């Protein structure tokens, strides 16, 4: 029993550490001071200011848009990839199952810079195409991992059962494979979406001037005047993510864990 209490205390300590900055951030969104200085004076003015802050709202819209496109692309590419790699066997199998995870082990700094160099090598202007490409590359592994875990758990006998009942390949895909992959597609898409939504480094390197995303806006507001509006918007995002997480968590269940599994079954 004593042992259990000690364990819980330890967990509490860690969670405290984990949540300290988040609490501070939320706290400061209700603080009067523009410079996040103490003493604390309660105020909702930063939330009110948020309403009129079109820059931040545009940035938010852009982030949502980029993340949405990225999420969709990742789900499509990931699903196709995972379905295809299912039939690959022999010496290629290992390569194909670990290939998509590779970008996870490259620091974003390097990923972003190398793409930037690529743009430069082709004498191009920065453009949205490369922003999407960069976002997709770093978000794709998450979709693939979730989908891979799911498809490994799928019994190949299901496809055969469907065929034996008279369904052709297309019907089997539409009525069996797709519905069964759907939760993983939602989960993987959501993760890729979040990864892209939150990404600063890649956008920072690749985004064309004049277009801004929320992380970039946050970074540039750190540059030109960080007002607690950022705290307010972050607090709102946390709230919304929590809701999404609850919804997605319910759909994807245990595949959540497989994400961080490095693809090892």
């Amino acid at each position: 029993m004593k042992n259990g209490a000690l364990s819980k205390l330890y967990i509490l300590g860690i969670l405290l550490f984990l949540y300290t900055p988040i609490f501070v951030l939320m706290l400061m969104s209700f603080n009067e001071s523009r410079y996040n200085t103490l003493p604390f004076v309660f105020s909702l003015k930063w939330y009110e200011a948020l309403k009129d802050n079109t820059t931040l709202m545009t940035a938010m819209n852009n982030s949502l848009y980029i993340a949405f496109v990225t999420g969709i692309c990742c789900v499509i590419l990931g699903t196709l990839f995972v379905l295809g790699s299912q039939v690959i066997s022999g010496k290629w199998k290992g390569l194909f199952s670990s290939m998509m995870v590779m970008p996870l082990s490259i620091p974003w700094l390097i990923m972003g810079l190398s793409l930037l160099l690529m743009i430069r090598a082709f004498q191009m202007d920065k453009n949205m195409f490369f922003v999407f490409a960069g976002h997709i590359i770093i978000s794709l592994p998450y979709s693939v991992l979730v989908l891979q875990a799911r498809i490994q758990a799928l019994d190949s006998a299901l496809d055969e059962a469907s065929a034996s009942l008279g369904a052709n390949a297309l019907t089997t895909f539409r009525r069996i494979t797709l519905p069964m992959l759907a939760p993983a597609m939602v989960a993987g898409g959501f993760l890729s979406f979040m990864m892209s939504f939150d990404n600063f480094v890649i956008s920072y390197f690749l985004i064309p001037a004049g277009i801004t995303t929320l992380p970039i806006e946050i970074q540039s507001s750190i540059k030109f005047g960080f007002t607690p509006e950022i705290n307010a918007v972050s607090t709102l995002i946390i709230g919304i993510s929590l809701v999404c997480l609850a919804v997605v968590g319910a759909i994807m269940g245990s595949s959540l864990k497989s994400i961080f599994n490095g693809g090892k079954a």
Partner: protein
Amino acid sequence: LSGCGVKSTSDTDQNGEKQKLYVVNWKDYGSDDADFIAAFEEANNCEIVNTYMSSEEELLTKLRTAKDGEIDVCLPNCSILPAAIEEGLLKEVDSSKLENFEKMFDRFKEQPECIKDGKLYAVPFVWGSTAIAYNTNLIKEAPTSINALFDPQYAGKITFRDDYNDAVMTAALVTGQDANNPKDMDAIKAKLLEQKKLNKTYWKTGDEFSKLFASEQISIGMMWSGQAAFMKQEGQPIAYVVPEDGAIGWVDNWGIAKGSQNEELAYKFIDWMISRDFQYNWAVNGGPAPVNQEAADSLDPEYAAGAGMDETSLNRLTFMQYRTDEVKQTWNELWTEVKSSK
């Protein structure tokens, strides 16, 4: 792909006859402020289409790759101007077509990097300085020398800017060298290393400085004129000085792109941008310092002094000049070495 909800509003304009002027500029840097340019657009029945750049380097790439008519006017500074002129990316500017050219401070009429072989290629637009800001509550006596940033009496309460150019130039000023062409790099390194010990931290972004300042973690530091003025308006106990022994200045210039199909309008635009009205309005609304002497003279002297926009300050500045890649690398390396040594 280019959508993203950020397209400029121009596309939706129904009046197709309007002339369009394509401008490459920083975001929020005058040419995209609806209030300021409305009058110009009205007067010339045109529309200004802004494209933004995120670095000078990027502007250079844009100029190199743009097709004819894609860019009319752009805003290069000293770091790329010589290259752009050398590569023939800019048209020669006929200053006689600019009514307001003559109203500029004299030094801006012959800004060295704007001129090549006696021909003018760019027109100065605004300028600013990087000097000293301090907390008037904590420091009663205004510092008079740039050396204040190296003064042990403020040890632990100083913040220096994390920028190789500012660092080397400032140290050059302190060691009595030509800030644009320092010779004794070892002395500069030694000075900066000495300074490092007195520092609370290096600041990189304006916000960092204001936070450090507001929470009184520092009492004095290297600062930009514009931000200092802004903070003062905010009610911070801040004062900005361009010390007698000088500080660093910079200037942004308008140029006309080689492929411009709208030269006439471009001249009108530049003329408008350096007009007294525009420059005055922008300056009092938190913009950088005007090159237009009339505009500068119209400013409240106290405000101008506090923002380092007055002529006295202007005359103390050493303006940044074009540097070759090699010099940049050397300076940057020196600065990296300073930062990374313990």
